[in-house]
């Protein structure tokens, strides 16, 4: 087998050196009854050619050649080939968690740079590297708030990504964390009065997302006031990192939980992505996940090490701040490379293009009789439209034109049938936007 670097003779030599006659003897410690008699019934073995052919067939059964207007936590953004070229260097791709600092400085400096970039984007003091994704980052942020406040009730805006709220619910259910949801208003933002009445002195955190699931920006400073008035923490989730190139960062938040997929990671049917938790320096010892810090050797050379490990499971076991071990380091590397390439001006331009194209798309769609925007709040590159008929029906028609239309919100919000979430990024061309508008217009003209 091509992955195995041994010849039959070498195997025999090694068995002889060990002092056994057959490989079977080395498995004697497994009770005979449990040892398999027959070979496993698995497909393969396949050659490289066959493996590639297999996956190309699968790829052809997917949405190749379709234009899509989907966002909702996973965004189609430009990814430079430079990022992937570096990512595939064996020194990064095939290395382990950098516990042995002397031969892991490459990964460690990258993590340190990643932490810095995340702080700069979110205007927070410290950031970790990394959490599994945005949904678990948001959930761990809630648990972190619980630890920090000693309170066990969190209020979550319904405008937070539905699947993020499901993950939070799963973790909360058994760890004694009580979760209550706060409605959204006509602007698509969290209902402030409702929040004010719901919040109390047992509230550990107020959890919102901005831009939220409807693409609408939340009023972070006002929310911070409400939360802080009750000594609760404000947790802000971010699924669309590119927004930070144009949108005011959540500086007033106590904890920011971000999904970094927009920074150079492919949609890849939902993962692997990279979650980040950023917060205030004073909260760092309750932070979950890995942290790299600066250190010096005996000669005074600057280097980096994994630090504050006393928060982690391998040291603290049942008292750890989280059970996370393997994380998303390679995705954090991709995000670091991607953001370094973009730079300050690149990120600004990208954000402005997203903003411009999304607003252009809305204006095109609003020209269609019966189509209007569902919420009034300011938005970045996603917005909800209301249609005169079922989104599913309309999408079915659009598919014939190789367009994957708006995400039907009825699936997640019973009250939001006929509402669709539209996402437009810098990779969407004007022609594609105009085609969407034209086809949607035509679809609506057809009798049901």
């Amino acid at each position, binding site marked *: 087998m091509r992955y195995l670097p041994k010849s039959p003779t070498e195997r025999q030599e*090694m068995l002889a050196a060990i002092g056994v006659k057959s490989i079977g003897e080395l498995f004697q410690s497994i009770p005979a009854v449990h040892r398999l008699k027959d070979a496993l019934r698995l497909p393969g073995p396949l050659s490289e050619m066959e493996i590639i052919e297999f996956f190309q067939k699968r790829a052809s059964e*997917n*949405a190749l050649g379709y234009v899509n207007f989907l966002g909702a936590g996973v965004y189609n953004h430009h990814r430079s080939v430079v990022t992937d070229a570096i990512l595939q260097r064996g020194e990064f791709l095939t*290395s382990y968690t950098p516990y042995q600092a*002397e031969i892991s400085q490459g990964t460690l400096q990258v993590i340190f740079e990643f932490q810095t970039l995340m702080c700069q984007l979110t205007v927070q003091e410290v950031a970790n590297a990394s959490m599994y994704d945005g949904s678990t980052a948001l959930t761990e942020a809630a648990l972190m708030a619980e630890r920090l406040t000693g309170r066990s009730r969190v209020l979550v805006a319904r405008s937070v990504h539905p699947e993020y709220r499901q993950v939070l619910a799963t973790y909360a259910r058994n760890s004694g964390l009580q979760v209550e949801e706060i409605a959204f208003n006509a602007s698509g933002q969290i209902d402030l009065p409702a929040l004010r009445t719901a919040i109390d002195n047992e509230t550990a955190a107020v959890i919102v997302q901005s831009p939220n699931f409807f693409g609408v920006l939340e009023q972070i400073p006002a929310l911070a006031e409400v939360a802080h008035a009750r000594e609760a923490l404000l947790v802000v989730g971010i699924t669309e990192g590119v927004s930070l190139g144009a949108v*005011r960062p959540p500086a007033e938040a106590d904890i920011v939980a971000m999904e970094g997929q927009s920074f150079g990671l492919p949609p890849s049917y939902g993962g692997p992505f990279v979650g980040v938790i950023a917060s205030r320096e004073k909260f760092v010892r309750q932070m979950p996940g890995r942290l790299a810090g600066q250190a010096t050797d005996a000669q005074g050379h600057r280097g980096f090490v994994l630090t504050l490990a006393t928060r982690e499971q391998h040291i603290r076991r049942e008292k750890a701040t989280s059970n996370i071990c*393997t994380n998303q380091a390679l995705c954090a590397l991709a995000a670091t490379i991607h953001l370094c390439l973009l730079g300050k001006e690149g990120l600004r331009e990208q954000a402005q293009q997203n903003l411009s194209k999304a607003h252009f798309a809305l204006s095109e769609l609003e020209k269609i009789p019966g189509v209007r925007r569902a919420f009034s709040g300011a938005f970045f590159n996603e917005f909800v439209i209301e249609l005169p008929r079922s989104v599913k029906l309309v999408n079915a028609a659009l598919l014939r034109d190789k367009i994957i239309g708006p995400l039907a919100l009825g699936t997640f919000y019973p009250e939001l049938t006929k509402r669709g979430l539209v996402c437009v990024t810098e990779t969407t061309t004007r022609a594609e936007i105009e085609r969407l508008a034209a086809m949607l217009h035509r679809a609506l003209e057809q009798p049901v």
Partner: protein
Amino acid sequence: MKDKITKATRHTNQNEALIFAKSAKGKRGVEFPPLDVPAINPQAVLGAAHARQEISGFPEVSEIEVIRHFTRLSTWNYAIDLGMYPLGSCTMKYNPRVNEFVARLDGIATEHPFQPQGLSQGCLKILQLLEECLLEITGMDSVTLQPAAGAQGELTGLLLIRGYLQSRGNPRRKVLIPDSAHGTNPATAVIAGYVVENIKSESHGQIDVERLRELVTEDVAALMITNPSTLGVFEQRIAEIAEILHAKGALLYMDGANMNALAGVTRPGDFGVDVMHLNLHKTFSTPHGGGGPGAGPVLMKRFLEPFRPVPVLTQLSDGTLSLDSNRPQSIGRVRAFCGNFGVLVRALAYTLAYGPGIRQATEDAVLNANYIRKKLEDVYDLPYSLPSMHEVVFSDARQKKNGVNTMDIAKRLIDYGFHPYTTAFPLIVPGAMMIEPTESESKEECDLFVDAMRAIAEEAGANPELVRTAPHSTRVGRLDEVGAARNPVLRWKPAASSEAAD
């Protein structure tokens, strides 16, 4: 003694400051096509309340500078592609390049989790085939691919157990965990709402079955066991252990991190395991990438199936695959979307490459570990002498006498051109030296490792200072971790730029 070192040499290596030190206003590494719609000014449409002013300190560099920056940094890393990576419990095996290729295909890497399922049949078929393969390899009945890593798999598994017990009236209070277990086990149990009770291992490092019998009460939800144990030894009385638990209505959870010792040879489903996780970034060769990503599928017996996280993959009568979220008894979601799909793609590519031949990989892994054990047992202390499977755990007991500990030996291995083994785990072995070569190492590489370890043992006697002060061949020496933790510097700051960024 230096002359003993044949595997590595010192060579010139580029220094490199932090990326922030290279920043200058106006440089950039990415350009965009001209905007093809009317340009909108953020201030105008977002208003002062929502528009961002400045991204303070954010780098501005060119493409060539980015290439050089990260290429230089990469040369400071050790990696599987450079040599043996014998980290015990981590299964650092070869990461096949074709797996990277297929995971990046248009139509695979480009797919959106919310696109119509009718246009996602390729992705869903990949998930289905991987599920079937993992079930066949483990002998279990049902599976979820959603967990993002082993630790999340553990949580998912315990929540399945909790959901099941709950459904029968009482989730119970305790989870039993051997003192040899990995830190994620107890940490996870707490998140699942359980109290951890540790079990001391018996003198051979196995589960103390008699003690277990006493501990297993109606209050115990499950035992989390790692098999082979973190000593690399198979739990000989595993079936009996399962019976003890089942007799009291408790379940057996198996941490499958060491599945590389079993694949194709024996199946947890056949020796009484009720639920387990796999680390696809270990046994199934997906690249560890400096810390992740991974994937921690959870496999279970039929009676736990109703509790699987949503969505679950189902096949409709017409044969099309779909994701079903309407599962009343489900424990809910543990992660958004469909898990680390890209990692699952790689794991399937790996499985298809071997097919039934995966047994050969297991045999070679066990062969390598036993070969190294045999070649080193006369110079290093072997605290537990039961037969090793895929890894062997020595201790620094003998070298300690000269004031040389497992960390010193590990660091000295770096000078000999190897990544160290796992130190200080499992906790039941003071000064543990946990060596897992995996099947990816040739006899040549194993022999070089043995030579290095023997040479270091000699140095520990003849010149302990040399070992204590190792490594001597790296661009930085041992770093002051205590100082780093005392006043942590966790990010670069412009103020300190001249200092930190250089």
